[in-house]
């Protein structure tokens, strides 16, 4: 029993902290957030050079071959730095290809993706759908030995900088479609989180050859969902950690009524609550990440616990931090709003807290209903 990061994981954390802090200073994040594409090509290249594009992907296909705990370490730092980067969407597609792709697809798509040469992003939810995991509405119409896709996908992350989409259809399959294929058009939405762009993507009679349809079906993607939820929950934990630190620092500095506001319990107890939520998020994230690597049978429950908890903490902690800051925290000039927005957007994606709590309820209540199961 040893529930802490190993020396190697500490080293990943330290490297990520240093690199991201120097790369994504406040002014640079703001530049990227205000730019047309929202994409930082140099930053991406540097991350790729560090091996991050394929951190938890198999070495056989160009990845680093590390585990989900290592991935969680990295994503916590991505959240801490609020790095505007397609690394998360790219990681999802990488995990999906490594778990659910064919060898031919791994050669053509996964290897360049793991090396950072090509970027992929998932296009899952149909416009007007419930946008919950697994509820995919687009049809794959048979066409010779391939299929044709027609319709609009929403909430597609980093679509502007993606080289290809991994498109979900209602038969449970995923299809790999180049972003410059005929019939594909991207139009950006106005997400509250300008550091991670969301777009809708139209597919108008887009033909997919048989070799670009992934062989796995529906439930096989749950292994991908569980792992990406751990990474996203880790990112929200990092967001919360940074917002907490900003609040504590401010509460030590800011003087009112002749003393630092952090000396008042209304403020200090709020900070203690923020610490509780941040540490709990971290505990559930590392518990789930460990399960992914060492005890996969307990991963579905653990991943939902982590995603549910971190969904809440990821925006509530920045929200509390804004309250500690007072008026300055509400300004555009202060960075806190970026953290609030990222945390809130993360909470909504890939099953919100309610969806994941329902998944937890299903597991624990069916256990209770089974006679003498204990």
């Amino acid at each position, binding site marked *: 029993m040893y529930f802490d990061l190993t020396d190697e994981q500490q080293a990943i954390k330290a490297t990520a902290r240093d690199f991201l802090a120097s790369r994504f200073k406040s002014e640079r994040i703001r530049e990227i957030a205000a730019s047309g594409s929202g994409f930082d090509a140099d930053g991406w290249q540097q991350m790729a050079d560090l091996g991050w594009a394929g951190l938890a992907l198999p070495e056989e296909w160009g990845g680093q071959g590390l585990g989900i705990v290592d991935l969680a370490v990295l994503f916590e730092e991505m959240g801490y730095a609020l790095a505007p980067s397609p690394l998360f969407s790219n990681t999802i597609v990488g995990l999906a290809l490594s778990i659910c792709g064919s060898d031919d697809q791994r050669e053509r798509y996964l290897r360049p993706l793991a090396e950072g040469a090509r970027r992929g992003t998932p296009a899952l939810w149909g416009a007007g759908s419930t946008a919950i995991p697994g509820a995919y509405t687009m049809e794959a119409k048979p066409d010779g030995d391939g299929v044709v896709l027609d319709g609009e996908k929403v909430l597609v992350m980093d679509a502007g900088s993606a080289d290809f989409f991994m498109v979900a259809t209602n038969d449970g399959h995923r299809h790999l479609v180049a972003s410059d294929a005929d019939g594909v058009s991207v139009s950006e939405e106005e997400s509250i989180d300008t550091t991670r762009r969301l777009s809708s993507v139209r597919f108008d009679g887009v033909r997919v050859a048989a070799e670009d349809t992934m062989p796995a079906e529906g439930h096989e993607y749950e292994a991908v969902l569980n792992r990406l939820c751990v990474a996203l929950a880790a990112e929200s934990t990092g967001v919360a950690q940074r917002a907490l630190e900003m609040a504590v620092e401010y509460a030590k500095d800011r003087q009112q009524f002749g003393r630092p506001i952090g000396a008042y319990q209304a403020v*200090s107890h709020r900070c203690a609550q923020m610490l509780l939520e941040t540490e709990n998020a971290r505990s559930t994230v590392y518990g789930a*990440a460990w399960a992914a690597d060492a005890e996969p049978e307990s991963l579905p429950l653990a991943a939902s616990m982590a995603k549910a908890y971190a969904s809440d903490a990821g925006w509530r902690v920045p929200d509390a931090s804004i309250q500690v800051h007072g008026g300055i925290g509400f300004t555009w000039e202060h960075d806190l709003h970026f953290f609030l927005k990222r945390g809130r957007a993360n909470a909504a994606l890939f099953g919100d807290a309610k969806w994941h709590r329902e998944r937890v309820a299903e597991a*624990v209540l069916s256990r209770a209903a089974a006679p003498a199961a204990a």
Partner: protein
Amino acid sequence: MDLTLSPSEEEFRDEVRAWLQANNPGPEPEGGLDEVMTFRTEWQRKLHGGGWAGISWPKEYGGRGATQIEQAIFVQEATRQEAPSPANVLGLAMGGPVVIAHGSEEQKQRYLEPILTAEEIWCQGFSEPESGSDLASLKTRAVKDGDEWVVTGQKVWTTFAQYAKWCMLVARTDPDAPKHQGLTYFLMDMEQDGVEAKPLVQITGEGEFNEVFINEARIPDENVVGGVGNGWGVAITTLMNERAGLAFGAIAQIQNSLGRLSRLATEVRTAGGSAADDSYYRQRIAQLHIEAEAMRLGAYRGLTKTMQSGIPGPEGSLGKWQWADLNQGLTELALELEGAYAPLGRGSEHAIDNGAWQYGFLRSRANSIEGGTTDILKNIIAERVLGLPRLR
């Protein structure tokens, strides 16, 4: 990172499990506290006979010399199997560890063995009527008289004082020193004329805790623990040990309660079917499970840290705070599930689960007060973990 038990720890767990299955005496007797204490004393003797009292204490003082993980494994298994509590809870969780950490060799030889056998029950004389959360302001005075100290004052919330032989007493020995520096930690014999314990009735109707009136009680000088004037540091060790020692039992107890809560939800009928099918209850039950898991994992993180540094850190305050919230939250939800039946307690013909949740609801009100109020724990976290300035 590794959340599994090592082969030798698994072996230990299996041994604990088998021993408990063979020896667990089952539920405590109904009736008064005297019967309960007799029952718990017998149980503790059995535990001691099996080598399960003082699991992490050194072997030379009658302990098992096991690791803190093994100690945690034992507590978890015992709670899971709903084994009764031993009689000398405070001696085992606080008194013994303090004597081991701060006591002299003579004190270790004298006091540890009778704690393990429940021959001598211990109580804790910290709080006073005017010194609760502000413990260091306590006024009970100890004045040197030859080889003895003469003590006068009043203690309160003293659990099991009516059964105790020894009291972990913090008293003021230097009224001129700053308040944290003028305190000394004593072991006071409760069986003397100058000490009188009067039970206080709690909101559950039970009388576990007491007021203790101390009037010129005598304590020999050799009963000072950790040196004159060092009482505050010794008392803090006691409280940290209390929090760390109780953590794993508390987690297993929460898990037991969550299991019962889920069963309650499947049994309770609502207009639309079972409460376990109702989305509102499903969300709340799930949230309690998630928070309990966060607390469990947090305790493992804390244990990993403690094993590296040797002492429990202030982070333990997070666990105690959370435990109180969870225990209160889940008994509150249970009463909500019981709906109109919520007032019916133990002994009522139509009470659900024989009123266990009503008792739990009332008893858990103390969880955010006893052993450090949640409000004070937040101060500790703010000051000692986050480094925020003190108000005082």
